[in-house]
């Protein structure tokens, strides 16, 4: 971890589905470089045999009874859709 290479901003932005301008790339790479430098100190902690914590008070297997409950009406669910047609969300063509 102490040898973490430079953050490849193009690769990460692509994974994150974010279009960045050249200026943003330069700024973020520099700022995140100093943040990464800071977080690398975690490599100093001895975590041998330590279990990870995902939640402070883990609760597992939370089920409710399998009973149908009313969901959002279609009109309410579509209320915030940027484009809709015939009770469906419209998007640009997916397959040419």
């Amino acid at each position, binding site marked *: *971890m102490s040898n973490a290479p430079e953050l490849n*901003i193009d690769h990460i*932005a692509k994974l994150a589905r974010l279009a960045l301008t050249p200026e943003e790339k330069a700024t973020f790479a520099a700022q995140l470089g100093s*943040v990464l430098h800071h977080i690398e100190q975690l490599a100093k902690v001895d975590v041998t045999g*330590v279990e990870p*914590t995902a939640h402070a008070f883990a609760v597992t297997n939370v089920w409710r009874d399998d009973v149908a409950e009313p969901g959002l009406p279609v009109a*309410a669910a579509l209320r915030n*859709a940027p484009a809709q047609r015939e009770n469906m969300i419209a998007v640009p063509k997916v397959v040419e």
Partner: protein
Amino acid sequence: MSAELHFHSIAEAAAQLEAKTLSAVELTQAVIARTKAVEPRVRAFLSTDEATALAQAAASDARRAAGHARGPLDGIPVGLKDVIAVKNQPLTAGSRMLANFVSPYDSTAAAKLQQAGAVLWGRLNCDEFAMGSSNENSAFHPTGNPWDVSRVPGGSSGGSAAALAAGEALATLGSDTGGSIRQPAALCGVVGIKPTYGLVSRYGLIAYASSLDQIGPFARTVEDAAIVLRAIAGHDERDSTSFRTEIPDYRAELQTRRGPWKLGLPKEYFGEGLDPEIAAAVERAIAFYKAQGCEIREVSLPHTQYCLDTYYIIATAEASSNLARYDGVRYGHRAKNAKDIVDLYFQSRAEGFGAEVKRRIILGTYVLSSGYYDAFYLRAQKVRTLIRQDFLNAYKEVDALLTPTSPIPAFKLGEKSDPLAMYLCDIYTIGVNLAGLPAISVPCGFTRGNLPIGLQLIGQPFQEASLLALAHSYDRAHDWSSRHPKL
């Protein structure tokens, strides 16, 4: 007692409503008038809905006249941070991404407030998607600190703290992922509590970092915070991390739990970087507790120096996942002129998100990416275990911990341009989120420049009743909450 209605505590207003010397409509009108008078300078709100608030107030008065008043919150105007959903109201998260979003449903916290009879007044400004410590990351406008509007109110729930301090509501709700309730409470001179993880349902709270986020109240007094917390706490089937636990009458428990307490001072929280005036104010609070017969001892939380890094790995990782849903398809901002569906994702997110959100998404994506997961994310989760154990070990010796809330008082708008410098504002608050503990910030004085100072008390899991009683014993013996900013 405060002569001005808009500066009433909930307890004061509730007593007058009960005695019918005040109506909910009068109280709501006073708060609306105050909001109109000071909002041009404070800018705590993103939107307001006067007609709905007044209708809720009228309904409260009708209930009371019919003998069906619902308790101390009935008819009390409460403002909500704009990440907490209220049906048919805007829900922007301070982001351009959700600029036109109207919530189709109620969050559990908002539904519970309405069941308690509260009047919901306004949508409060915050850092975009609750990411920030100054409210400057709001896509719409910054909020001024009512004590000095050229300074920040803190963040990310800065609007919630500022509105309350300015008399634009009698209580507000915020959310706290790394200090986002406690730090603005400290900077604005009000009470703010971050409950134990799992005490308040997150259903209808816009997710930032799901394993850390909690909704909690801002109030003028600890007693008021107890009233609001009781109303919003409790198990909810709609949040699978919601905890099944009895919710006591926190307000009544303030009278029955009187200490003395054993208080721990984590030595790592009193070191370099702490403003001397804040250190002095916290020392006076320690002296107060000592005089009350509390045993004070130094404790150590040895992994404190790793809290900030652990937090920024875990929180950004969770954020990168949570914010993947904003893709321009089902709701939120959609870019025009996208070439195809994939380009639509890239362009909508580029246009909809601000700089800090993009930075955190990139960092979170990086720490989760192939080859780095073990080195960063998994390691951070293990360090999180050690951080949590530090606190639990301390609680073998003491009942609660006492620290400053923020290392510095309210700073100038625009003063902190470096992200890392901004992150350091949260050094005393983030450990609590990582460990899932309850903590409260209580006003404990002012700097020579008349800026509020906050005292943080950290309690044991689900022991909010004790924590509130401990905070109340300080709060009721001091008159900080009766001071109001001149606006």
